[in-house]
């Protein structure tokens, strides 16, 4: 075949084939692992947080191409953000940065948002002093 057709757009395929920030963080400050009840995918995000800012992020994902690409993109996007900023992170950012996902795969980006927020929640739990500074903690998804 002279031409290559792909199931997803080139950005999604690129992140699936060459995922960014894949792996775990030694001495992570917050770790979140969530599963999608709909399909059974599982995503884990680890964060390194310093002075209220996300210094580093890593992911591990059991899931389809768009789940892997979504977690890769989400970790790229949140690096450098403050906890406050990260708390209001939305899956739509992942969808937009990936140049769109098929409708049936939007839930993969939601999973990335949930994994990130679970990691932030874990951080807040481990650092009650940081919690006091974060006004929006209550809105963190469980």
């Amino acid at each position, binding site marked *: 075949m002279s031409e290559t057709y792909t199931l997803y757009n080139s950005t999604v395929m690129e992140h699936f*084939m060459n995922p960014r920030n894949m792996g775990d963080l030694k001495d992570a400050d917050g770790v979140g692992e969530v599963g999608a009840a709909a399909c059974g995918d599982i995503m884990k995000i680890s964060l390194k947080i310093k002075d209220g800012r996300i210094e580093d992020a890593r992911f591990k994902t059991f899931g389809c191409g768009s789940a892997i690409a979504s977690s890769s993109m989400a970790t790229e996007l949140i690096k450098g953000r403050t906890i406050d900023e990260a708390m209001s992170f939305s899956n739509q950012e992942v969808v937009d940065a990936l140049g769109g996902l098929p409708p049936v795969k939007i839930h993969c980006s939601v999973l990335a948002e949930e994994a990130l927020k679970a990691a932030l929640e874990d951080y807040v739990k481990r650092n009650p002093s940081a919690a006091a500074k974060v006004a929006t903690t209550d809105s963190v998804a469980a």
Partner: protein
Amino acid sequence: MRQVFLDHQSSTPVLPEVFDAMRPYFTEYFGNASSLHQHGLRVRDALKRARQQMASLIGAESEEEIYFTSDGTESSNLAIKGAAYANERKGKHLVISATEHPSVMNSLEFLEKQGWTCTRVGVTPQGTIRLDELEAAITPQTVLVAVHHVNHDIGTIQPMREVGQLCAAKNVPLYVDCEASAGWLPIDVKEWGAAMVSFSPHRFYGPKGVGVLYRNRKARIVSVIHGGVQEGGRRAGTENIPAIVGGGVAAEIAQERLSQRVAHVAPLQKRLWEGLKLNVPYIQLNGPEPGPHRISTNLNLSTEFIEGEGQLLLCDMNGISVASGSSCVSKSLKISHVLGAIGLDHALAQGNIIMTLGKANTEADIDYVVETFAKIASKLRGMSPMWDEFEHGVIDSVIAPTGRGKSFSQHAAEVSGKSAH
């Protein structure tokens, strides 16, 4: 890059001799078989010849028992709805196996909404229909039993002779979907005592756009597509003559070369499974071992701790075309109902890949697939939190339990808040 097509259950390329036979029916012999002039009469002859070729492939007595439709799905719809409506006064109950193709399952669901009742007979973990349950399911109101010859997902060959005898003893017509077997396994409609049998030539190097329904003269069906009186009044609509002609030639060649094709793919099937078993840890074969109970073209695999769509995509990027029954490849986000019916663990169903062989595959292809698939599995495991957690004893393997850690499904339910299925 090497290109290895391992999805022959989805379709096969048209043979050059089939294509050659079809060509004049697009351009020169374009007539409509319903016309009474030379153009019509010529294609009627071609239609008759194709019917004979189809009848011969499945051991039917006469070409008059062959009906052409647009594909396997339409044939199933005609067989099931056609028999249900034709026998409505006798009873409104149908019996099928739990692992039938969606064209059968969904035709039944449609009928259930119209007031019919249906019984889905369970299968063994290998996918074989439970004959005692089948016998118990048939009632005096049962107007049709539908059991496929070979399962499209896991390749299980059903005990058709026994199913046929059971239906004959209960005097209930039997419909056999042979979509996954025609051209690859001998079919004898008389030996099974089948009232109806369906298949489509694009599974054995014929064209798409044509399906076949065999109907024994004694079986009653009504048309579900209304219009002219084509196909003995049982399927209205202009016949797709080029596809029918090509399908007939493909059937004739399939019959001639059946044992030769099987002799080619069966050793490749064994080589592929043996190779994968040796090179990929925590992999399992779903359905029977290669041998008399499994069609020689199919392997259905579950590779643990990784998901099927990712495997499929990476195979594709390495030139290998495969299918998957994982929830992630389905638009409904549900695992294949066949994998559910054999009781496969959800985690294993999610790591599912289906490889189906054909006559063009070679030993070198198989060795490339084994080598590449081992790399793909290890790449995806490197990304998988489940593999990590397995290695750290948090979760256990379903395929080879170590006795430490909780089950994948239990873990998945905990992190997702509820069980996936």
